[in-house]
């Protein structure tokens, strides 16, 4: 009888005999010894079965009626490796959640829906459409708050997508993730999830993201879904609001929900403007020195293009006809004249676009590139254009809608950001990364 992961087995080699539990492995055999250490063996060794593993019965993960609905879309926070089968499964039954986070019992009834279990980078519009549909249905059924567990890498794309698909939600839709997986004692998922649940019970009704505000396990920021961005590969406080203060500062332990910038109020009577149509045929191009005109030409089969330009919103136009330089201006004009909207955004992430300052900007603007005076993030511009193209084909209408603020994705005034909003919390020490949304490294204090 062949041994399977979980079984107690004996492995004999010329060096000795080892007994332990067989662990899942891609190649060879991995044995967990009684000391807890795992030891790897090559395929060649003989594996003798000692005792068969009997798997415990699995419970139905989707259960309950709840005022708060937790939807799993995958990512670090909502899944756990099942070492007995080697697979990843959604870790989402109410019992599991309560086991992980006993404090959840102090909140109103919670319903959980394990929707997907995918890696963040595999996310696309089909997942957003289905998630939007489920959220819409739950809100219609009376949910008072929605929490979405999501991988952090593409969370800001998803939060922007649901912001547009579910405009004017009457209740908060809170995305939450983790930078350290839930199976670690130091995981940030507990603070993040508890603050997400707490936020979903407050008087706010935006689609947004809850994540650690600082490197400390003290409080979180609630960021607007269309203005948030992951700005660090691994730190807890990777998520920053771009160009605006976060919506709120949240700490469930102190029952603190301090609003830091204008937000939409909760109103159960308000009707959600539900529109899940989405055109996935949009390209996003990172402008770089020496970019080839043929790259732009290759975009002619797309329905829309977002450029992530340099500085104020630039791309090579070679106005002085320098022999070394190559312009992509004509190629962009070609796209626009064939009714493909071209949207500008900036690699600087922070700051407003302005196509009037330099000649490159003016030439691009004259060519019909859309975006001067806007301050959207590249990702949000991409999502908004794709969403608009889902219901609108005429380039003029697309432009008009792009330039109209819908869900906070563009602001009229560039806020002078200071750290003063932190003073609302007397307990917030000016510790490492406390004002980290202005800085890249959590170890540098501004």
């Amino acid at each position: 009888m062949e041994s399977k992961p979980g079984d107690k087995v004996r492995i004999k080699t010329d060096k000795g005999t080892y007994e332990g539990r067989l662990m899942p492995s891609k190649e060879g055999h991995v044995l967990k010894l009684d000391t807890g250490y795992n030891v790897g063996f090559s395929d060649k060794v003989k594996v003798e079965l000692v005792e068969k593993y009997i798997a415990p019965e699995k419970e139905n993960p989707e259960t309950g009626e709840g005022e708060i609905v937790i939807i799993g879309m995958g990512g670090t926070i909502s899944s756990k490796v099942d070492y007995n089968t080697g697979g990843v499964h959604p870790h989402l039954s109410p019992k599991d959640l309560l086991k992980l986070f006993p404090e959840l019992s102090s909140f109103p009834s919670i319903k959980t829906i394990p929707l997907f279990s995918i890696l963040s980078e595999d996310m696309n519009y089909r997942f957003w459409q289905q998630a939007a549909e489920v959220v819409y249905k739950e809100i219609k059924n009376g949910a008072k708050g929605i929490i979405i567990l999501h991988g952090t890498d593409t969370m800001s794309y998803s939060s922007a997508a649901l912001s547009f698909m579910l405009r004017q939600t009457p209740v908060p839709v809170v995305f939450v993730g983790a930078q350290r997986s839930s199976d670690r004692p130091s995981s940030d998922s507990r603070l993040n999830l508890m603050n997400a649940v707490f936020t979903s019970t407050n008087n706010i009704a935006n689609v947004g993201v809850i994540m650690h505000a600082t490197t400390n396990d003290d409080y979180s920021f609630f960021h607007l879904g269309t203005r948030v961005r992951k700005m660090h590969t691994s730190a807890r406080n990777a998520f920053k609001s771009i160009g605006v203060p976060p919506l709120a500062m949240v700490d469930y332990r102190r029952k603190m929900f301090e609003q830091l910038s204008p937000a939409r109020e909760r109103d159960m009577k308000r009707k959600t403007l539900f529109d899940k149509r989405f055109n996935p045929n949009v390209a996003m191009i990172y402008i770089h020195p020496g970019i080839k005109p043929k790259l732009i030409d290759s975009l002619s089969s797309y329905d829309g293009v977002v450029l992530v330009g340099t500085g104020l919103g630039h791309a090579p136009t070679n106005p002085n006809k320098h022999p070394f330089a190559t312009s992509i201006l004509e190629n962009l004009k070609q796209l626009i004249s064939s009714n493909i909207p071209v949207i500008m955004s900036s690699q600087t992430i922070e700051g407003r676009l302005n196509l009037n300052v330099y000649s490159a900007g003016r030439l691009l603007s004259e060519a019909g590139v859309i975006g001067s005076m806007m301050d959207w993030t590249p990702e949000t511009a991409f999502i908004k254009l794709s969403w608009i193209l889902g219901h609108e084909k005429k380039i003029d209408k697309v432009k008009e809608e792009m330039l109209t603020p819908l869900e906070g994705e563009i602001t009229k005034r560039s806020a002078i950001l200071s750290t003063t909003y932190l003073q609302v919390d007397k307990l917030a020490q000016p510790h490492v990364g406390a004002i980290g949304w202005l800085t890249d490294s959590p170890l540098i204090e501004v």
Partner: protein
Amino acid sequence: MKCGIEIHQRLATEKLFCRCPSILSDSEPFKEIKRRLFVVESETGEIDRSAKEQQEKKQEFTYQIFNENCCLVETDEEPPHEMNKDALLIVLGIAQQMNSNIVEEVHTMRKLVIDGSNTSGFQRTSLIALGGKLETSEGDVGMLTLVLEEESAGIVSENNGSRTYRLDRLGIPLIEIATAPDIKNGKHAKEVAEKIGMMLRATGKVARGIGTIRQDLNVSIENGARVEVKGVQELKSIPLYVENEAKRQENLLVIIKELKSRLGEGWKSKAKPIELTIIFSSTKSKFISNLVKKGAGVFGIKLEKHSSLLGSELNPNRRYGSELSDYAKLAGVKGIIHSDEDMEKYSILESEWKEIQDSLNCSKEDGFAMVVAEKQTAVRAFEHVLRRAEMFFVPEETRKANPDGTSSYMRPLPGRARMYPETDIPLIKITKPLLSEARKTAGEGAEKKMKRLSSLLNEDLAKKIFRSPLLPVFEQLIKKGAEPKLAVTTLTETLVSLRREGFELKDLSFIEKVLSIYNEKKITKAAIPEIIKYHIQSKETAEAIIKKHNLGLLSSEEMDRIIKECKGDIKRIMSKYRLRLDPKELMKKIKGSGR
């Protein structure tokens, strides 16, 4: 008695999972951060008993960060980098010297530790080899495991459920060598520790100085239990800890036997905590009245038929009551007062004493425990006291080595449930080229090295330099052609006497320079300490110092001239030119001219 030993030795490489230097800071911390940790299930779905007990304390941790040796990896803000190859090579080399069976693949594991000493809540640890043996005067001692793991963060302070740690130490590579329980007695344990320590030092790749090596002792006696005494720092105190632990278990067995006869097997206490604050409303005990003023209460619990046993001594100054007290501390109290203690110590009157006994409904045969704390804390403290009191066996424990040779309870002995795979680090296949590189890294081994040193030096000097932290510097000097005896005396005697005078040489490469000038016959041996001293003061080069202070070796002509000048008066010549001439050479010349 059965005894095994675990040696933890820091390696002199960069940190194990990031590229920070393995140095400790003496500066002020750059920043502090605050974190919490939570207990999680192992990969097999179990929860470790040791971690669970820690969880109860619900602590907040403060971490001090230092610029020069902490990065985002130490603060748990960045995944670990690849395993430090230098450290792996050292351990693979030592494993080969010990004839231990090296694993085919190294799997890094997370060992759950949620007392805050690791920001991640686990210690990364990798099993490198299994088995092997060590020859000792009392027969072979088997090796269990060779492990490469991360050093934990150092504790700075602890108060009321919050601990402060410093992160400079976190992540320094440690080799952990665990022996089988083949050790016969305390003296034997010391020998084994010494021998392993020598092997490690012989590689020249391990850190030296206070705290860089620690011993954990695993002791059990017949009918007792495996108990780990953690953090013994000095070799010479190993026998004391081993013997005290054996004695503690023996004495516990006597008490257990008595308790069984008084209360029967499987006794469960039915006692409930009772508030006694009112008894102390006009007490003379400052200890009690001060705490009560701050809002604490006095609480007691009856310990049925425990009279006289609580005061029974297990180790010098450690009684059975101390064991219960250690458990009570888990709830956050400073300890308990028990009925076999001297009440005068706490200024508790006999009348108060009597009232306590009455309130708790204690007969002469009964004992009691008392705490001064908030009600909830007291209730939890008594839960722990009763839990310990009901153990009619020697519990498996991890204990902390106290400075006086005794130990106190830390946590239950952790089991395998505390280990789960470190998914951020790919497994490492151990290849033949890697093993041969490791052999070169770890060097010839302790025995061969000692033999080679003995061929260069007399036995005393060979032993002296073998034990010295400057052994790698010595080897380097020899390679560059220095005279072995002169190298040893310079590295040991000269540097030590300069240090006593307040001169500390930081740049040891200066010695190499001076000894090479000596080899070129440009200075005398006697001038060497002077040149080093001048260098420490002025930081000037050796050449500049020799020129400035006239320390160059006298030429034959100059010597002739001086002998003539001083009319061959040896005393006069030596007092003036001691540092610039070789006395033997001088004698030869004077004798020659006399003839």
